[in-house]
């Protein structure tokens, strides 16, 4: 009997029948992995452009202090704070606590506009500062005091942090 035509033993035929598809399946799966492994990682797609919120409009630049506000500062404040707001008015050297230098941003940017307003309106003592600063609330109206606060911001070239 030709060995090629001779029937295979039953065990071999069974093994081929069971393992053949299994091996094929393994080979297929393995390639797939290899294919995946070999594939260079695709560059991450560029992040979808975030729809940028429209930039907030720049705060309107404060109007420079009016001549009236400057005159008010010169009339009342300059006695202690100085003609240019440097804290060197004619009373300065006689005061226990030197008047605030309105050109120094380091301190003034730590104060809110409301705190500056209160200091002018109610005096230094009312806001926990030096009692040498009198209260001007019975002398100047609120509009004038707000204008002085803006002028102080102009002198210090600073805003509250």
């Amino acid at each position, binding site marked *: 009997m030709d060995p090629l035509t001779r029937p295979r033993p039953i065990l071999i035929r069974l093994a081929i029948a069971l393992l053949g598809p299994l091996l094929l399946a393994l080979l297929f799966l393995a390639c797939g992995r290899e294919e995946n492994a070999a594939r260079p990682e695709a560059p991450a797609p560029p992040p979808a452009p975030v729809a940028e919120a429209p930039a907030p409009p720049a705060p309107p630049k404060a109007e420079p202090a009016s001549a009236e506000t400057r005159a008010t500062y*010169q*009339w*009342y404040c*300059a*006695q*202690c704070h100085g*003609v240019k707001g440097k804290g060197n*008015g*004619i*009373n300065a050297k*006689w*005061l226990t606590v030197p008047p605030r230098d309105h050109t120094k941003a380091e301190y003034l940017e730590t104060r809110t506009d409301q705190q500056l307003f209160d200091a002018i309106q109610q*005096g*230094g*003592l009312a806001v926990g500062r030096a*009692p*040498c*600063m*009198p*209260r*001007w609330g*019975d*002398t100047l109206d609120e509009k004038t005091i707000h204008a002085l606060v803006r002028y102080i911001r102009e002198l210090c070239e600073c805003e509250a942090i």
Partner: protein
Amino acid sequence: MKRLGFYLLAVGWLVCQPAASFALPLEGMGCEACHRLSAEAPPGERKAPDLYYAGDKLRKEWLVQFLQRPVVLRKAGFFTAPGFLAGEPDARPHPVLSEEDAKKAADDLAALKLPGLPTGLVDEEPLSKVGRVKAKILFERDYSCIACHEGINLAGQARGGVSGPSLAGAGNRLKGDWIVHWLKTPEKFIDKSRMPVYRLDEETLAQLTRYILSLKKEPDEWTR
């Protein structure tokens, strides 16, 4: 000819008479060169304190002494002066008067009063020790007067700001009623000063007034 000579002599005598002999109060003394003697005088002429209410404000005895030995009450000068804020006071000294002229001028000044200002508003009894301490706190701390006016410190020295007149001798200089009027209604005396306006209750007003009256340091020039 003799008659003409007589007339010339008479006219010459009249011309040579001091103007004050015929004058209105203070006229001819030159006060009006710096002080306003009338509320109607233009504010631009105010180079020194207004005197048209001097009789309400100033004590006559002080005036007599001041006019003979003037002292500087406003170390930074008068608040309308061009050099005021620059710390460059007008250095011209106040004219010195003879005792006779000083007494005459003080009499004239004492007669200058605003009509209808009430008097008798202040209890001028000295404050008690405790009252004085409380009032000192009002003066130096609560109402910041010391920032612009000299007061008297615990060592008896004049100390404080200089943009307002010194108050170290205010008790010798000012009348109590005037202090009340000034603190209560400054607009009666001036259109616009550099001093804050305070709405004081009656008790605070009285305490501050009595404290200011207690400040009686004589100028060094007067005690030498």
